[in-house]
């Protein structure tokens, strides 16, 4: 048997899912696209059940890849599947609109009135038995965060699956029903597969949901379509409105009627501190003060933790590396190989535990409390100036931690163009590895102010690049439409799982490449290729960038692992006192170049996966070009100011 969790965003679906399945779940992609769903298995009354958590969707009326994927998935589920529809009981009327659409599918189903505590707080009393009678399937009150009612919900789902409890059919106005009847006839005649519920398909015809209607093209001929279009026009004629508005209006009213029927609002909404929070956090001026303070504190915390932990790991791996040197001194090839391997492992741990883990925990915290949606709101008009909108801020913030999860997060954006531009900008944001170069070189040898200036230059360049790209790819962006969720105390399990999922993306994609990169680097040294690479690159490094030729190989290394550019710079220059061999201008231009140039191989892999190889190539080329221009500018402008 298969349980499919369906619900609107912010309904607490993931909290319930995590409560039930824990960390064992696996994120998978819908075939062909990069919208994720999560699958896991549970055992209930000696029966093995797959539980599937599909992305939150406001309706089955599809407007983007994620919703389409979700709808197609639900439409084609196996016979023994049960839909578990999770509702946010505190916004019951709106939540019921999705329920009504799910009911049209006529598949076994149960309904969870989640966040029932929140509804109580608002004084909304819901008669779940009455609701169950109206919609024809079991209704269970749950509180996902406290784990209340969930066991009963799953037990009812199992029962519904066995007994094939199907929802009632709620009839609409006569003209819609007449249309539906004639459509039923046609579909039967044309042998449209019955697993696509005819009534559901009929409503899809009225909704003009092209992505679903297209399924019917295999069965209908031109004449049938003409007949259908004529009928649709007739329906549209009466209120003089497009049929997609009509169907959703009817549903909206139905949902409201059911709500009025089953719920009583006993007192006006009791205001609590959460309602006042937004007067500060979304204030036109104070909001930004809080935003900057919260982001500053987040980064401060991460780098403090990281600063304390990092040396501990590095020391131990250095010891291990030394141990290897004495053990395998007589087999130099193997030694280089092993040393590279250990450094790759160590480098990964050195990034994950001190920086990425605290970063992702903090970010999930900001996301799950509901603050991140406020950030998108605050930053929206700024983002519009570069042709994007508020949602793009999430991948970009992630990018300050590690570019790979940042790139993968661009999948929350609906338009492919927004995704491409945001991915390009995210690639250019200095990740924590690049931060070590900026602060280790410029911060240490020039000044902290000069290091911070790099971040400011970076933001200005991001602005220009974004502006140019959106000019080059003009498209009316649909703009921001974002639900501002109520503040919530995040569930610990959901927080943990979200952090783990993001970390997994680093571990599975970036880390293996990091290890391979480290091995290659050791082998380059083993075969004494350093000098030939340096002299090969010298027309570029010395000629164009005006840097010492020995930095050539460090830049190649930087493509494998950004932070290696710094470590290897010291060994290439044969001193840690960089100022004796490089001028401040050279240091600055090297750092700027290292910050912007070719993304690390893990990032390129992520770009190819999320966009495609061509776009990954384009982004790589673009960042390389920007890096050269900036580094050359610094080379000639910097000396004027010093």
């Amino acid at each position: 048997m298969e349980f499919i969790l369906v619900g609107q965003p912010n309904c607490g679906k993931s909290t319930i899912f995590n409560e039930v399945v824990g960390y064992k779940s696996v994120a998978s992609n819908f075939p062909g696209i990069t919208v994720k769903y999560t699958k896991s298995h549970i055992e209930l009354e000696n029966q093995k059940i797959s539980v599937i958590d599909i992305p939150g969707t406001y309706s089955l009326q599809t407007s983007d890849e994620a919703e389409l994927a979700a709808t197609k998935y639900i439409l084609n589920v196996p016979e023994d599947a049960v839909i578990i529809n999770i509702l946010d009981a505190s916004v019951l009327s709106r939540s019921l609109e999705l329920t009504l659409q799910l009911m049209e599918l006529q598949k076994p189903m149960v309904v969870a009135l989640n966040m029932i505590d929140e509804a109580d707080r608002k004084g909304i009393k819901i008669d779940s038995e009455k609701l169950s009678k109206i919609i024809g399937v079991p209704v269970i009150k749950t509180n996902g965060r406290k784990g209340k009612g969930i066991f009963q919900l799953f037990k009812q789902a199992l029962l519904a699956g066995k007994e094939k409890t199907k929802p009632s059919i709620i009839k609409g106005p006569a003209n819609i029903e007449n249309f539906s009847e004639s459509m039923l006839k046609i579909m039967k005649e044309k042998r449209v597969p019955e697993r696509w519920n005819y009534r559901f398909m009929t409503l899809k015809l009225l909704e003009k949901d092209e992505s679903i209607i297209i399924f019917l093209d295999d069965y209908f001929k031109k004449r049938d379509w003409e007949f259908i279009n004529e009928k649709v026009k007739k329906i549209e004629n009466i209120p003089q409105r497009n049929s997609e508005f009509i169907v959703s209006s009817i549903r909206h009213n139905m949902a409201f009627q059911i709500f009025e029927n089953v719920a009583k609002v006993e007192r006006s909404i009791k205001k609590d501190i959460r309602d006042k929070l937004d007067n500060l956090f979304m204030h036109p001026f104070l909001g930004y003060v809080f935003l900057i303070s919260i982001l500053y504190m987040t980064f401060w915390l991460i780098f403090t933790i990281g600063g304390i932990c990092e040396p501990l790991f590095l020391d131990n791996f250095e010891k291990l590396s030394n141990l290897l040197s004495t053990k395998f001194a007589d087999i130099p090839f193997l030694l280089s190989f092993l040393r590279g391997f250990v450094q790759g492992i160590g480098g990964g741990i050195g990034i994950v535990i001190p920086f990425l883990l605290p970063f992702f925990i903090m970010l999930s915290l900001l996301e799950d409390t509901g603050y991140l949606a406020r950030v998108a709101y605050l930053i929206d008009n700024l983002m519009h100036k570069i042709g994007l909108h508020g949602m793009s801020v999430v991948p970009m913030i992630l990018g300050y931690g590690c570019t790979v999860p940042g790139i993968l997060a661009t999948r929350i954006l609906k338009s492919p163009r927004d995704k491409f531009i945001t991915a390009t900008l995210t690639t250019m944001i200095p990740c924590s590895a690049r931060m070590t170069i900026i602060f280790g070189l410029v911060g240490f040898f020039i000044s902290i102010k000069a290091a911070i200036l790099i971040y400011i230059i970076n933001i200005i360049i991001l602005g220009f690049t974004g502006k140019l790209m959106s000019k080059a790819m003009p498209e009316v962006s649909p703009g921001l439409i974002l639900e501002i969720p109520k503040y919530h105390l995040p569930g610990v399990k959901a927080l943990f799982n979200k952090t783990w999922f993001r970390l997994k993306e680093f571990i599975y994609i970036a880390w293996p490449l990091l290890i391979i990169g480290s091995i290659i680097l050791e082998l380059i040294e083993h075969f004494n290729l350093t000098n030939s690479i340096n002299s090969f690159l010298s027309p570029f490094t010395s000629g164009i960038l005006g840097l010492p030729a020995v930095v050539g190989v460090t830049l190649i290394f930087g493509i494998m692992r950004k932070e290696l550019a710094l470590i290897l710079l010291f060994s290439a220059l044969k001193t840690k006192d960089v100022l004796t061999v490089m001028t401040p201008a050279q240091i600055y231009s090297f750092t700027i170049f290292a910050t912007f140039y070719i993304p690390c191989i893990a990032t390129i892999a992520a770009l190819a996966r999320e966009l495609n190889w061509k776009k990954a190539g384009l982004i790589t080329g673009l960042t390389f070009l920007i890096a050269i221009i900036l580094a050359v500018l610094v080379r000639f402008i910097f000396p004027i100011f010093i």
Partner: protein
Amino acid sequence: MGKRLTSYKDGDRVKITKIDAGHGALINLINLGLNIGNIVEIGRKSNMKGPVIVSYQGTEVAIGYGLATKIIAEIT
């Protein structure tokens, strides 16, 4: 007479009469309950052409300024 959503002030209760957006944005708005005929309350309009926040039945939705100018509503 209907005016753009952006021309109302905080606390106004308005009825949506027309949406001039493309199909994608339209479906998004409808899905979030912003259909023609629905009544929403304007809240927290930022003065710098930032998003407009509308609320109804306990849900708050931020709508980008550009899109908000394409939604026509009248006061109820």
